[in-house]
């Protein structure tokens, strides 16, 4: 049996199917050819397991020893079949079965140690082969973890689980194959074309006064903007930074104050009966109706804007956290109390994690309304900031800058919401897993 035939045989066997050609040849060099007559015993149960066998022709009866719970204690291995994989396990190198040739049999045998050493040099391929061995073992045993768990691993990351970049690339390629991106492009195309044509080409009655697509883009990316604001001017980033800073402060305060308030409102009935009515009386007043009062209460121009932004976020956070506590099944608290948990322990171990999902919904809403009221506050009372840019650009007839401000607001707002959502998803992984395991 020559090298090529051996490689072909390996290619037909289950574990080596996916191994590339040149590696197969290298593995074929490790293989030794042997032939047995009818009735020959290849190994007994309890022998030291040195080699893995692949049948070329003939038939081998494979009888598992008592004590190994197999789905089929007896099987016949024929051409292309693999047996004797105890040689590649890392804990147990004894034969679990007895193998007898039923007719004249030709086979190749590969030393387990040598095979493992070989794969150490090419861990990716090695892990694929070993995972295929593990699959084989899983099929044969009713208690497979015990055995298959000892199939060696070569790489740090199991290759069967796609992670990080490869997963992203896979999803990207799937997405590109679907009609979605092309429909999306069509949608954007229609939107931008309508804008461009209506304003700059056809000059429709009301549209003619609006800043056109090309005007806005030229201004936005111009190194020497007509109205003084583009991606090349430092003022642009200063405005963004001022707005973001206000959002950060307000969002932080709203979270730090709103989450505990919401937790206590949901947790203690007495507390809620006293505090919630006041909360509910104040809540219908639109945040933006607070603007003048905020200016009166907090002197200066910075604090009122932050206060308005904070107020909007605060309501959303506190209310959603409270709802979250209310949705917790009361039997959890009771069960914990039965097991001897103190009130504080129930609060920490049941109430807080139980309210988490709603809390993050609240934070997502909170960041949205924060931008909403920040813009209003900046337009009326602010100095600097994106809302201020939009408003002053209007009063000073810098129409393209209005649109630049709007687009920037959209982008920054979207990014901040996405960040909060990602943080939430990251911290809510246990919940996603729980939902997945529940089959819901």
């Amino acid at each position: 049996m020559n090298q090529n035939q051996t490689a072909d045989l390996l290619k037909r066997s289950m574990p080596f199917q996916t191994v590339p050609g040149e590696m197969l040849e290298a593995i074929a060099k490790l293989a030794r050819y042997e032939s047995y007559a009818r009735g020959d015993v290849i190994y007994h149960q309890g022998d030291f397991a040195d080699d893995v066998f692949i049948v070329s022709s003939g038939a081998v009866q494979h009888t598992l020893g008592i004590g190994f719970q197999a789905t089929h204690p007896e099987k016949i291995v024929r051409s292309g079949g693999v047996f004797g994989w105890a040689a590649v396990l890392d804990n147990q190198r004894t034969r679990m079965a007895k193998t007898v040739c039923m007719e004249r049999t030709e086979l190749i045998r590969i030393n387990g140690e040598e095979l493992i050493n070989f794969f150490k040099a090419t861990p990716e391929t090695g892990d694929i082969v070993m995972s295929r061995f593990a699959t084989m073992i899983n099929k044969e045993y009713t208690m497979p973890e015990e055995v298959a768990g000892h199939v060696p691993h070569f790489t740090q990351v199991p290759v069967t689980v796609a992670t990080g970049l490869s997963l992203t690339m896979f999803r990207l390629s799937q997405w590109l194959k679907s009609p979605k991106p092309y429909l999306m492009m069509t949608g954007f195309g229609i939107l931008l074309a309508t804008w461009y044509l209506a304003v700059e080409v056809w000059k429709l009655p009301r549209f003619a006064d609006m800043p056109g697509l090309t005007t806005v883009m030229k201004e936005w990316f111009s190194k020497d903007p007509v109205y003084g604001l583009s991606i090349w001017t430092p003022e642009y980033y200063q405005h963004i930074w001022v707005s973001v800073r206000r959002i950060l402060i307000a969002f932080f305060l709203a979270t730090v104050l709103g989450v505990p308030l919401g937790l206590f409102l949901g947790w203690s009935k007495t507390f809620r009966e006293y505090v919630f009515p006041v909360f509910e009386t104040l809540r219908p007043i639109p945040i933006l109706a607070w603007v003048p009062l905020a200016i009166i209460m907090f002197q200066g121009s910075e604090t009122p804007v932050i206060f308005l932004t904070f107020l909007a976020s605060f309501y959303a956070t506190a209310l959603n956290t409270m709802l979250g506590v209310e949705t917790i099944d009361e039997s959890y608290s009771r069960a914990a109390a039965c097991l001897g948990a103190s009130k504080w322990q129930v609060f920490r171990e049941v109430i807080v994690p139980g309210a988490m999902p709603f809390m993050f919904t609240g934070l997502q809403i909170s960041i949205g309304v924060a931008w909403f009221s920040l813009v209003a506050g900046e337009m009326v009372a602010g100095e600097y900031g994106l809302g201020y840019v939009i408003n002053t650009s209007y009063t000073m007839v810098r129409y393209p800058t209005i649109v630049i401000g709007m687009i920037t607001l959209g982008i920054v707002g979207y990014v901040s919401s996405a960040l909060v959502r990602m943080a939430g998803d990251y911290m809510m992984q246990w919940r996603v897993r729980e939902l997945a395991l529940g089959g819901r």
Partner: protein
Amino acid sequence: MISKRLTKSLFSRSNLRAVIAIFVFLVLWEVGSRSKDWFGFPMPWVGHVPPPTAVLVAWYGLLGDPGYWQSWYMSTLRVLAGFLAAMVIGIPLGLFMAVNKTFHGIVFPSFEVLRPIPPLAWVPASIIFWPTQELSIAFVTFLGAFFTIVINVLGGAKSIDPRFFQSAQSMGSSQWDVFRRVVLPATLPSIVVGSAVGMGITWEVVVAAEMISGGGGTTGSGGGLGFFIWNSYVGGSYEQIVVGMISIGIAGFVCSELLRKLGGYLTPWLRKR
């Protein structure tokens, strides 16, 4: 018998506590804002706010003022105009996006790109675009409710169990039947929720739009509640600011409650028994 039950529920412990809490809140507010006169040192923040008694007096004076009621009328009109436009355009758009995948693929991304822009950022652009101030304010109010309604309708329609469609189709329903008998009743609850939330946003937006754009009317108090507040601020009558705030709170609350009641009437199967 009924009166006894009524008194019992009226004077329940939770209601009693609510009254106590609001009373304490008002007293603290009163003391806080009068602390400069009474104790000689002003409280931070609250010290600048007019006390509730003064607000009540100012409110009482305004009750006979037609200009105040005109503000109510103007704001309500604008809210209704923007809100109705958002319903009329938003609900069919949301439903159509839910039913037709191609349309969803084309429109939804553009929709999502425009959505993060806060409605108030549209105010200047809207003033430039629309011929009258009235229309521009209504447009911004429309935007406020529009996105919320569409997202809610779409979400509601997407969460329908696909087996409902399959069973309706297997029993020979036409596309229209599926829409009329499955999609519409299934999305009705989310339409109601979206509308109620949208109504709240509409009131938020109308106030700000009135403040920023100057209210439409040149004659002081005729320009809606938002302008009423802003005018009171500029004129220095701080009590009236608070009156305006409370008025808007009441108006928004009443509108949302009416909408919820109407929604409950439209979706009787969701009523709690």
